[in-house]
């Protein structure tokens, strides 16, 4: 069974204090790893898609990297507005030619001013 584990569950940072969130996965035939940001009471907001080990993508203070077993979301000099839950999802082939995404439970990030 495909599994996605995110750590830590919760993270508190001071403004400007860089850190990393981890997403480890066990899937057969990875067809994409996705990072989303979710604010309370809202739907997830797409951040990145990574497809192969060694791939990296950046957006403002965020940088996502991928290995064969895990992905990291690096947050450089975070600001209070970066506070949110960060979700990781993997996609792998399922029966009938479909692709099923599996989400982790998320990391709740709070950045204090």
């Amino acid at each position, binding site marked *: 069974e495909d599994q996605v584990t995110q750590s830590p569950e919760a993270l508190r940072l001071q403004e400007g204090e860089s850190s990393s969130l981890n997403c480890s996965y066990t899937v057969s035939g990875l067809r994409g790893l996705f990072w989303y940001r979710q604010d309370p009471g809202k*739907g997830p907001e*797409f951040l990145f898609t990574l497809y192969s080990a060694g791939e990296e993508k950046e957006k403002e203070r965020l940088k996502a990297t991928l290995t064969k077993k895990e992905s990291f979301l690096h947050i450089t000099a975070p600001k209070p507005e970066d506070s949110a839950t960060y979700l990781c999802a993997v*996609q792998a082939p*399922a029966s*009938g030619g479909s*692709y*099923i*995404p599996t989400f982790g439970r*998320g990391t709740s990030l709070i950045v204090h001013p």
Partner: protein
Amino acid sequence: DAGVTQSPTHLIKTRGQHVTLRCSPISGHKSVSWYQQVLGQGPQFIFQYYEKEERGRGNFPDRFSARQFPNYSSELNVNALLLGDSALYLCASSPRDRTYMNTEAFFGQGTRLTVV
């Protein structure tokens, strides 16, 4: 451009009733997926529809069904509601992809369903 819109935003139902949730995708998006998100957990995949055909189904009972209309909007139906069905139901639309993979997905605000 309007994003993904879902209706209603909140709903309270009694055990045993049925419910219909609606979703309008972003203009031009032909793929719609439905997710259930219980408080404190990540979204759990229910269905994906592409060009009005079911392309993927998660591990949910047959009480859950969905359909997609010619204008690519979608409905999620849940029969015989249980207390455990209380959750945020999310709809996501994706750009057309010939392999039917869920590339970047754009989520709506969700429908908060409470079963009492």
